[in-house]
Structures are given as structure tokens and as C-alpha cells.
């Protein structure tokens, strides 16, 4: 778990230095096949600030793609493809291996993953079956399966229940897999991941999963509306609040949409707001560390912003915000980055009219929390090598760029952040990077679901006016102390 109270200095100058450093490193150009957007490492910036990205060159990637032959056809064994031939290739041959992947149901991600499974199978000889269930049932379905027959090989696990699964011994330790060159493409290892990414999927000193689907809550605003109204781009929450007040009712629009439904999103929004002030829910030892005063300040802003939101704020999840943004009924929004993907898609009435900035109380100190998913191998899997091969391949930069272009999420490997294609395809790429840089990951402690649920009830109480921000902030600290111990 990455916990940070003082965000490292960030800004354009630092990001520029990092980008130049990345561009100057050998073998750091984007591994895109011919015919796609040109490589432009200097135009993008990896989330990490010091580490060296590891990526295959365009030449090696293309060559690898050309040389790849389905293992099922060749009858190759696992040794036939040790280390792979490039970062983009699945590693190993697993003829006859049948993998069951448990994930949440939802397109475009689900369909795209089926296609990716077929691609992986064409190379390795294995088959991938996607067992997709609605998000609200995913946790219980996985828990019941893992406690019983254990038919699943790979699970898409959220941080919320990661800790419980680790404690129960359901997840395979992946340390040896990541460190074994014969199970990975050449040049791939722990350093291939952005700083802190593998720590998000670790517990008790072991790596259990490979993360992807990184996102953060950011502020989106209508550039055309701001221009018409003579407003500057918002840099701080004070700017956002002032603009929401001014634009509320402008051309029949609401000032801003914010999440209020107890579905995780209010917690994530408040987390970004408190993190921007340098406080967090707990410290490195897992003990409560919440600053009540700063939390009350964040809740106060939350409450004030709600005054300019469409009716039904307590029923607003990121989906409703995405629809409102698409329909042009709001001038601004605070929501998760993937929720704006449909807003910016072809056919959206407001496509290209949005700009994105991170949540910040001070312009040079944005806040954020890394929201992510992760791919884990079941400790009961009959095909752990094949399962690792698939998740290693699926989470690498090249595949994650495809996921991003299809679904608006971002990967967690360095080569993803080198991709000009991803940057061009995600309008919120820069804001997301700023929000994520050095930000703490969403909590993955055992027993956290109940705590988060109770915290969201307090946020709703403030939005309803049944509690003051100060009372709710104190209640949140009490909840943390009751759940995590004083």
C-alpha cells in the first residue's frame, strides 16, 4: 500500500524533464505496429518520475509479430518460447490448457477481452473462457467459487476485497513468476511497472496480482461554455465552485455534476479532496490518520458543489454523470476518467468540448487516489503458468493501449505511458497522469468494505444536510478507529 502525506513536487518542469529523459533512453520508442500513430515519447510522460521505462522497439515488436506462430499448429512446448520474442508476445505454449477468467460484465471491456483471449490462445494453444457477471455480484461469486470447487483460474479483483482474498489464501503468489525470465518476455520484470503499481497488488511482502484499469477522479469542464462566459480554466476547487455558481442555469445547464450515490464514487471523490490537502485515511501501519479539520473542509466543498448539481445528487453515480455530460446538461463534472470516454466518443453531442484538470485545493498540488483493478491467479488453478502468461500479456502496454482505445482506461506499465496512441485517444490523459502521480492507491485492507460503506453514508448525510461537515468528519474518524483500531 502506498501511503503519502506529502506529495512529491510535481509540475510542468519536472514532467518535461522526465519526458525528455524517457525519450533519450535507448529502446524507449513506442512499440506500435506499422500503420498506427507515430511514436512520440517526448509527447507523453510516464506516471513514474525516476524509473526507466522498458519497452520493445518498434522493430523488435514488428519482427516478433511476424515470427509468431500459433503453438497449437507447431506443437511447441513451453520451452519453445522461453522469454518470448518481444514485449508484445504471449510467453509459452499451453496446448490444451483451458483458462476460466472471472471478470465483471460490461462492454466494451468484456467483448474486447474475449477477442484478446482468442489472440492469446492463437499463439499459445490455450483457450480462454470469460465468465462475466455484473459488478455487484462479482465479489460474492468469486468468493463462493474460491471457497468451493475453485473453477476459476484468473480473477479480476478489486482492491476492496483483495485483502480478504489474500488472508484466505485464495491468490497465488506471483513473485517467482515475475522474476523468472523464462516466463516473461525479454526485458520484462518488476521495473516494467510504474512506480508503486506492483505494491498496490501486494500484501505481506508478496505480489499477488497484476494491476490495470487505472483511473482517477478529475474535474471536467466545457471549454466552449467557459469561453462564452469569459471564464478561465479552473485550477483549484475554489475556481470550480465559483464557476459552478456562475454557470448554474446558464443556457439551462446545471453548474456541475458530482457523485453522491453510495457506490464507491463519493468515497473516491472525497479521497482525492483530502489527499490534495495531505491527509489520508490511515498511515503506513494501517492505523487511522485522518485529519478531521481537513476532511471537514473537503466535505464543505462537496456540500457547496452539490448546491449547483442536477436534482438527485444522491442518486448520481459515474454513469449518470457521463450521460449528463454527453447530453450537455452540465457545465462541469467531477467523475472517474473512464466515465468521460462515452462523452468523447463519436456521436456524443459534446464530443471535443471538454477539458480536464485534476482535483486541487492549490494549483500546484493536485489530489488523487489510484482506482484500479487487478488480475490475480487462483491458488487452486490447474494451469497457473498459462494463467500467468495470459495476465502478463494482457496487462502489458501494447494490449493496454488497445483496452484504452476501446474502453478509456489506462494500464499500469511504463510502456503504456509512452504510447502516443493512448495519449491521443484519451483526452484526459494529462489530467489523469497529474492526478495519479504519487497518489495513494485505493485501500485494500481486510475489512475495508464496511468502513468505506459507512464513510459514504457520512458523505450522504452532509449532502442531505442532516450532518455538518465537522460532525461527519469526526464520525469518519470514529468509523476508522472502530474498524482499524485506534
Amino acid at each position, binding site marked *: 500500500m502506498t501511503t503519502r502525506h506529502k506529495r512529491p513536487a510535481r509540475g510542468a518542469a519536472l514532467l518535461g524533464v522526465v519526458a525528455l529523459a524517457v525519450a533519450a533512453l535507448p529502446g524507449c520508442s513506442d512499440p506500435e505496429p506499422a500503420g498506427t500513430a507515430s511514436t512520440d515519447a517526448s509527447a507523453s510522460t510516464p506516471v513514474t518520475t525516476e524509473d526507466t521505462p522498458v519497452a520493445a522497439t518498434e522493430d523488435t515488436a514488428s519482427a516478433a509479430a511476424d515470427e509468431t506462430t500459433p503453438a497449437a499448429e507447431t506443437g511447441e512446448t513451453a520451452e519453445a518460447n522461453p522469454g518470448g520474442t518481444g514485449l508484445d508476445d504471449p510467453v509459452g505454449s499451453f496446448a490444451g490448457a483451458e483458462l476460466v477468467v472471472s471478470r465483471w460484465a460490461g462492454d466494451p471491456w468484456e467483448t474486447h477481452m474475449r477477442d484478446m483471449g482468442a489472440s492469446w490462445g492463437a499463439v499459445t494453444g490455450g483457450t480462454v473462457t470469460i465468465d462475466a457477471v455484473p459488478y455487484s455480484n462479482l465479489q460474492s461469486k468469486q468468493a463462493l467459487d474460491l471457497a468451493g470447487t475453485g473453477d476459476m483460474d484468473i480473477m479480476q479483483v478489486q482492491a476492496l476485497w483483495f485483502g480478504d482474498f489474500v488472508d484466505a489464501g485464495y491468490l497465488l503468489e506471483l513473485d517467482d513468476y515475475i522474476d523468472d525470465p523464462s516466463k516473461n518476455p525479454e526485458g520484462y520484470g518488476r521495473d516494467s511497472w510504474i512506480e508503486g503499481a506492483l505494491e498496490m497488488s501486494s500484501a505481506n511482502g508478496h505480489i499477488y496480482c497484476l494491476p490495470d484499469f487505472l483511473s482517477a477522479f478529475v474535474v471536467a469542464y466545457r471549454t466552449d461554455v467557459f469561453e462564452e462566459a469569459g471564464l478561465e480554466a479552473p485550477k483549484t476547487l475554489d475556481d470550480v465552485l465559483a464557476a459552478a455558481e456562475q454557470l448554474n442555469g446558464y443556457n439551462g445547464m446545471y453548474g456541475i455534476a458530482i457523485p453522491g450515490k453510495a457506490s464507491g464514487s463519493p468515497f473516491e471523490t472525497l479521497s482525492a479532496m483530502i489527499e490534495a490537502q495531505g491527509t489520508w485515511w490511515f498511515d503506513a501501519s494501517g492505523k487511522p490518520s485522518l485529519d478531521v479539520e481537513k476532511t471537514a473542509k473537503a466535505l464543505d466543498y462537496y456540500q457547496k458543489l452539490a448546491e449547483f448539481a*442536477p436534482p438527485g445528487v444522491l442518486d448520481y453515480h459515474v454513469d449518470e454523470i457521463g450521460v449528463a455530460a454527453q447530453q450537455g446538461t452540465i457545465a462541469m463534472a467531477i467523475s472517474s476518467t473512464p466515465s468521460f470516454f462515452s462523452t468523447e466518443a463519436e456521436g456524443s453531442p459534446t464530443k471535443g468540448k471538454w477539458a480536464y484538470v485534476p482535483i486541487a485545493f492549490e494549483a500546484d498540488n493536485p489530489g488523487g487516489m489510484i482506482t484500479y483493478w487487478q488480475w490475480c491467479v487462483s491458488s487452486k488453478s490447474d494451469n497457473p503458468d498459462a494463467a500467468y502468461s495470459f495476465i502478463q500479456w494482457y496487462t502489458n502496454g501494447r494490449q493496454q493501449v488497445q483496452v484504452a482505445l476501446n474502453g478509456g482506461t489506462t494500464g499500469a506499465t511504463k510502456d503504456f505511458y509512452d504510447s502516443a496512441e493512448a495519449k491521443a485517444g484519451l483526452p484526459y490523459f494529462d489530467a489523469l497522469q497529474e492526478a495519479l502521480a504519487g497518489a495513494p492507491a485505493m485501500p485494500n485492507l481486510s475489512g475495508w468494505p464496511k468502513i468505506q460503506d459507512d464513510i459514504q453514508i457520512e458523505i450522504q448525510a452532509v449532502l442531505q444536510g442532516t450532518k455538518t461537515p465537522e460532525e461527519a468528519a469526526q464520525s469518519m474518524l470514529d468509523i476508522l478507529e472502530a474498524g482499524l483500531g485506534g
Partner: protein
Amino acid sequence: MAASSVTVDPGGRRQRRAFGHRVSGRLLGMGMLLPAAAMLTVVIIIPIVYSAVLSTAEWGLTDMNGDKPFVGFTNFERLWSDPDIRKSLINTFIFVVASVGTEVAVGFVIANALFEVKIGKRFANALILLPMMTTPVVTGLVWRYLLDPQFGLLSQVMRGAGSAGGMDWFGSQKLALPALILIDFWQWTPFCVLVLHAGMLSIPEHLFEAARIDGASRIQIIKAIMIPALVPQFLLVLLFRTMDTFRVFDTVFLLTKGGPARATETVGFFNYKTGFEYFDMGYAMAQSIMMLVAILLFSVPYIRLLRKRSMI
């Protein structure tokens, strides 16, 4: 022939034979009941007893194969001190009383109207039953968009009528539970109509004729003939709807997830959250047992009254 056969029956053989017949008859009866009894034991009694046993252990969903330490009545003690379960019980009580009360009352009025109507009766019957046939998922989606404060049909109508905006049904602590009651009312009033209307059709026609000849008004006929004759149907409807609404889960899950701020968190939904989101299965089992006991307690009077009426 019979008399002579009695006289030749030595040593009470007939009595023994009769006894033997009775015993074999009983054994045969018991034997025939055995499959049903075994089935009931396997599918009802054993799971309930097993749940009761598990409710005395401290275990999570991730400990299904592990040790489940016995903690006595600790999980039941938690029920008394947990403010969340108290809140969910209050919500459930409001939901049950409001839903069942309105469904039965309005169901009776509609059933009575159907009883009286002469033209289009079949069409009206089919139309009234439609909500009951709709799946909960579709019901949830339909109402989600009907009541949406921005894009919903109701808010559009309200705007057309001069209102500034739609009502925030699912986002308001005051309106969310009434909205769920409204949806339950929409979906399940047809059930009340169906049962009560069938009961009305079974009342002998001569009773109505006699009342009309005596000059009884419509209200008097309802009070003196219909309601007394429909008591078994009322009890049946009350029993079924009370049990159903006490366990309500689907619409809560689909529409509000218990929110906002626990305003619609019913016992059934809280039970689900405890078990499948917090993984606290021992406590969830204790809640289930509590629900079972509560349903039994308020069902017993209904069942007794129904037995008196020879309905079951």
C-alpha cells in the same frame, strides 16, 4: 354367510386380522409419506437447522472450508446493539405496512370494479395482470427512467405543467422509500386483485339478489356480504404479501442499493450486504434466523385464522 363365518372364527383370529390390517395400513401410509417427509427434511429442515448452527459461529465467506469457532449467541447479541439493523428493521416495517395496506385496499376496490363491470372485463383483467408478469429487472429499469428527475417521464410532465424540475425520488431520503413502496404497489396490487376477484366470483349470486330485493345499498352489500365472505381471501393475500414484502430485496438492489444514507436499506438487503459484501457470514446467518422467526411470528395468526376457515 357372515354369521356362520363369525361362528367358525376360532381364538379371535378376526380381531388379530383387523389389528394386522390396521398396522399394515398405518405402515403403508407412513411408507407412502416417507418420500415427501424425506424431501421436506432435506430441502427445508436441514438447511434451516444448519443455518441456525452456523449462526453461532464466527466465520466469513472466505472461511467456508476453514474453522468456524463457536461463539454462542454473540451474533444474536450484536443484533440488539447494531444501529444499522435497527434502521433496516424500521425501514422494513414501514415498507411492509405501507405496501401491503395500500395493495390490499386498492386491490379490493379494483377487484370490486372488475366484478361490476360488464364490458371489456377480459381485457381489463389481462391489463391489470401485466405488472405482475414483468420481471423485477425490467420493473426496476422502467421505474428508474420514469422517475428520473432530469430525463424521466414524470419530471417532463411536471415541467410541462410549470414545475421548475422533477422530483428527486431515489436521491432523497424522504422520497426514496415511498418510491419503492409505489413500485411494489404497482407490481403486486394485481395479485390482490386476482385473489379477491376470484373470491367475489365464488360468492353465491342469490345472496346479492336477496340483498338487492331487501333494498340494500352498494356499500351495505359490500359490508354485509362481500367483506365477510372474502375474509379467507383477505387473509391469504395478507399472509403472502406480508412475507414477500418483509423479504424485499430485488427492487432495493436494483434501484437504490439501500441508499441514500440507508433510507431504503431493508433487512433483506442489509442481510445480503453483511454476508456478501462484508463477508461476515456468522452475523448474516443470525440475521436470517431473526428474519425467519419474525416471519413465523406474524404468520402464525394468519395461518390459524385460515385453518379456522378450512382454507389450509
